[in-house]
């Protein structure tokens, strides 16, 4: 078997960390699970995922307890599947990809993926989890026209070609492409992954090809849908945690308790992870999410009503959270946000207005804007000086980090900025000192924001202050996400304020999607992204050299097969961003408060991010436990 360089490492790691411990291992009964379930050893896979807590810097915990946490919307119930972070393959805390639900992944030539399941692994209802569940998804769901009339998702397509899917045996399946598909495994490790397997035994009863028509008809009536397909779509959602009957592989599963305001999850008695003492994970028995208005969550947290809270808490809440620590007995840990920049200005390089387009595409203009921002002042005013003034780029903890990426053109230098603006030819000024555009309009930039983050709006106010010295007037126009996206797509948007790159801690193996015009919702170049996404059917072709270069590099990454190759591509892309200042980042590494009440194994510092990170996911929320239990 020929294994690619990358996955040799993965396979080796598995051997070291898990294969060795399996021998000296006795499973203990799990307290607090439903009556009448088989003993632990019969519930667990033959070869469970065993974690030695001390080896990963944690302590072995105790099972039990109920964790209270607060969410802003009923929809947020899905977070349980993010935090639980049981994936076919997932990132470790060091952002390494490891098999998790899978026992093993073998990759050949970057294009043949053989997935091996754990023997005896069971769904949360006790039914075996086998290759049939993969087959069911691929053959009866994905390629069923009624269920999925819109074809394959892009991570399954290489040059427009779908994979060949084979069932090797009961626990082995294989996906084969003609060319490498480096997107495949990272996609499976996402916080919102594509669930390429479904509980076939449960879902078949609603499937036209398998189910009893009478049952299906009754169900469609109950759910007030028109045919089996919408019914199936409704019931098979593995992410949103809406159907308490849907079997799951995640550490906690939805119960029928509670209602829209209080969502209760209980431990999955068939979960595949164990600690080295033989205790089945997760340690915590129940998770209760209470829905509260987002604005109230800091207050409620401060009143000690949450045991683990990061959602809806922001930097500005830290002062009030710190205040309640002593009386309510919680601790406010400060993690680091993994965004490339907490606040970034995004000039629209594809703006329709020709004057603005010329200006926004002029690198001197973007440099001048960047040099005209006093990042230290912003850091002091908004973040007590605790954040890092930086461009929008990868963070220090990323293996791809270089100082230049963060510092180029990021110092406050109004003189140089003024000189650059003069050099462009923006020398005419209105009597109040505002520069004039070539066509005589004043240089007034309307910066549109989603209106959701006060810090962003505040930052713009501070930016506008120093820009005023350059003869540039900036106006903030709070708007709405959807409106801004539409305006970016239509080319009406001149500049937006947004958060920076979602993934500020990439490794070379993570796709550099954010860094090239690959998607229609990137405000810097929405039409170009749309062009790429739709294969030229809509949007417009990039007319700007650096963008074209970034696209080439991205395509090269997709076709790459070695880590070194990928790292090189990454560096070139980051360098282009640093040179061109495509995003004008302000600060990054902003602290994210994480309130912890009575829990152990929650890291004091850590990264807090969506992808990669899954919030608590990569920090192994299943290993959190209540220090004192009654």
């Amino acid at each position, binding site marked *: 078997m020929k294994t690619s360089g990358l996955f040799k490492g993965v396979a080796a790691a598995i051997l070291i960390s898990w294969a060795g411990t399996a021998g000296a291992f006795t499973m203990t009964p799990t307290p607090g699970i439903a009556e009448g379930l088989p003993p632990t050893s019969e519930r667990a896979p033959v070869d469970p995922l065993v974690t030695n807590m001390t080896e990963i810097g944690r302590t072995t915990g105790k099972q039990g307890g109920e964790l209270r946490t607060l969410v802003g919307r009923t929809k947020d119930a899905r977070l349980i599947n993010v935090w639980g972070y049981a994936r076919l393959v997932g990132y470790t805390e060091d952002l390494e990809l490891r098999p998790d639900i899978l026992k093993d992944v073998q990759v050949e030539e970057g294009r043949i993926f053989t997935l091996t399941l754990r023997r005896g692994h069971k769904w949360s209802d006790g039914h075996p989890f086998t290759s049939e569940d993969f087959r069911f998804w691929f053959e009866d769901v994905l390629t069923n026209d009624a269920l999925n009339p819109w074809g394959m998702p892009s991570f399954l397509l290489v040059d427009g070609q779908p994979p060949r899917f084979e069932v090797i045996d009961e626990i082995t399946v294989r996906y084969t492409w003609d060319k490498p598909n480096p997107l495949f495994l990272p996609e499976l490790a996402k916080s919102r992954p594509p669930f390429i397997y479904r509980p076939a035994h449960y879902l078949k009863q609603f499937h036209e090809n398998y189910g009893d028509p009478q049952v299906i008809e009754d169900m469609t009536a109950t759910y007030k849908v028109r045919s089996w397909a919408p019914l199936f779509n409704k019931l098979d959602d593995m992410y949103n945690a*809406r159907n308490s009957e849907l079997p799951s592989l995640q550490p906690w599963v939805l119960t029928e308790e509670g209602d829209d*305001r209080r969502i209760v999850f209980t431990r999955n008695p068939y979960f595949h992870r164990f600690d080295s003492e033989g205790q089945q994970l997760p340690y915590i028995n129940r998770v209760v999410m209470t829905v509260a208005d987002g604005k*109230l969550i800091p207050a409620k947290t401060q009143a000690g009503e949450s045991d683990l809270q990061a959602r809806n808490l922001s930097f500005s809440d830290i002062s009030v959270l710190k205040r309640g620590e002593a009386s309510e007995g919680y601790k406010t840990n400060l993690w680091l946000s993994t965004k490339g920049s907490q606040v970034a200005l995004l000039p629209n390089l594809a703006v329709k207005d020709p004057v603005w387009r010329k200006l926004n595409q002029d690198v001197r203009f973007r440099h001048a804007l960047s040099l005209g921002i006093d990042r230290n002042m912003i850091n002091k005013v908004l973040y007590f000086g605790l954040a890092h003034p930086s461009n929008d780029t990868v963070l220090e903890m990323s293996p791809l980090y270089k100082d230049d990426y963060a510092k180029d053109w990021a110092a406050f230098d109004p003189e140089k900025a003024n000189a650059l603006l003069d050099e462009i030819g923006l020398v005419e000024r209105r009597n109040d000192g505002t520069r004039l555009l070539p066509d005589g309009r004043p240089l007034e930039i309307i910066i549109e924001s989603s209106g959701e983050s006060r810090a962003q709006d505040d930052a713009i106010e501070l930016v506008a202050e120093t820009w005023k010295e350059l003869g540039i007037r900036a106006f903030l126009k709070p708007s709405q996400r959807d409106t801004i996206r*539409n305006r970016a797509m239509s080319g009406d948007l001149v500049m937006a304020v947004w958060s920076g790159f979602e993934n500020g801690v990439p490794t070379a193996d993570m796709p550099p999607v954010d860094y090239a015009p690959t998607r229609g919702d990137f405000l810097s170049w929405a039409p170009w992204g749309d062009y790429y996404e739709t294969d030229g059917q809509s949007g417009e072709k990039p007319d700007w050299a650096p963008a074209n270069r970034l696209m080439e590099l991205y395509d090269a990454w997709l076709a790459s097969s070695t880590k070194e190759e990928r790292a090189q591509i990454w560096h070139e892309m980051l360098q282009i961003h640093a040179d061109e200042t495509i995003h004008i980042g302000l600060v990054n590494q902003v602290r994210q408060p994480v309130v912890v009440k009575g829990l152990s194994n929650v890291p004091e510092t850590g990264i807090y991010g969506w992808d990669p990170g899954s919030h608590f996911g990569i920090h192994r929320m299943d290993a959190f436990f209540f220090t004192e239990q009654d």
Partner: protein
Amino acid sequence: MLYYTVRRLLTMIPTLLVISLLTFFIIELPEGDYISNQIAVLKSSGESASVAKLEFLRQEFALDRPFFERFAIWVGLWPGPHGFDGLLQGNWGWSFEYDKPVYEVVGPTLPLTIVLNAATILFVYLVSFPIGIYSATRQYSWGDYGFTFLGYVGLATPNFLLGLVLMYLANAWFDLSIGGLMDPEYIGEPWSVDKALSVLSHLIVPTIVIGTSGTAAMIRRLRANLLDELHKQYVTTARAKGMKERALLVKYPLRMALNPFIADIGNLIPSLVSGSVIVSVVLNLPTVGPVLLNALQSQDQFLAAFILLFVSVLTLVGMLVSDLLLAVLDPRIRLGGGSRS
């Protein structure tokens, strides 16, 4: 009486129709709709697959039709994609945001909404009646001025701020959980004495906050009505009979001054709902208010339209009930135009 009731009910029909049209129109005023916004979101996240799903929804809910057709389909006066299937047929619509039938979203919030509003009405009446009577009988006294002043201060304080401060104080002093209508552990649990107590204690702050804004107006009106009545001749007549002032006040002028209040029960409902939206948001109350607010903001049109319509119907029913009540209580209306003996 029966005839009158039936006639009143019949006149409600065109009113309701206009209200529903107006509501539907207003809901649709903002640009775009829920589905197109969702499409924008999904498109941006590269899930073109889901886009097609939404396009399907758009047809499913007839959002691609012209305004009046959409309206008629919603009401059930016009066949939609599935024939006649609107409000009239008992289909209250679909919430896109919750992906549930509207009644499943609204239903659970209604009992608490009603409890809250009833508590507020009770509060308003309990507070404003004694004070109004006191103010009217001791016009221009210090007490009169004092209560008037207090009432106006209640009216003048923005509800959300008052709610915020009281909520904080309730937590700091009485260790009441922040926001909500009960302590979190009772949510979704079966009813028990403890749960009821928890609900009661959580009702205090919102009741006061919503109530204060209405109390001042109520006091002033009761006072004005009562003052009017106190100068009527029949009061002098009663006095000339040698009645005690208090007994007289209760039997005659107060009884008369009450009529406008009974007539106003219907009008109270929309203002209470208005008042409770913000307070419910601030205090995180699981009433219909925040649902409405969310629905309006996310353009979840059927949900928003239904709630608005529901409140309007409630108001109309309230008006009807207060009219009927008035007819029962006021012989002039009950027997008006009756034969002269």
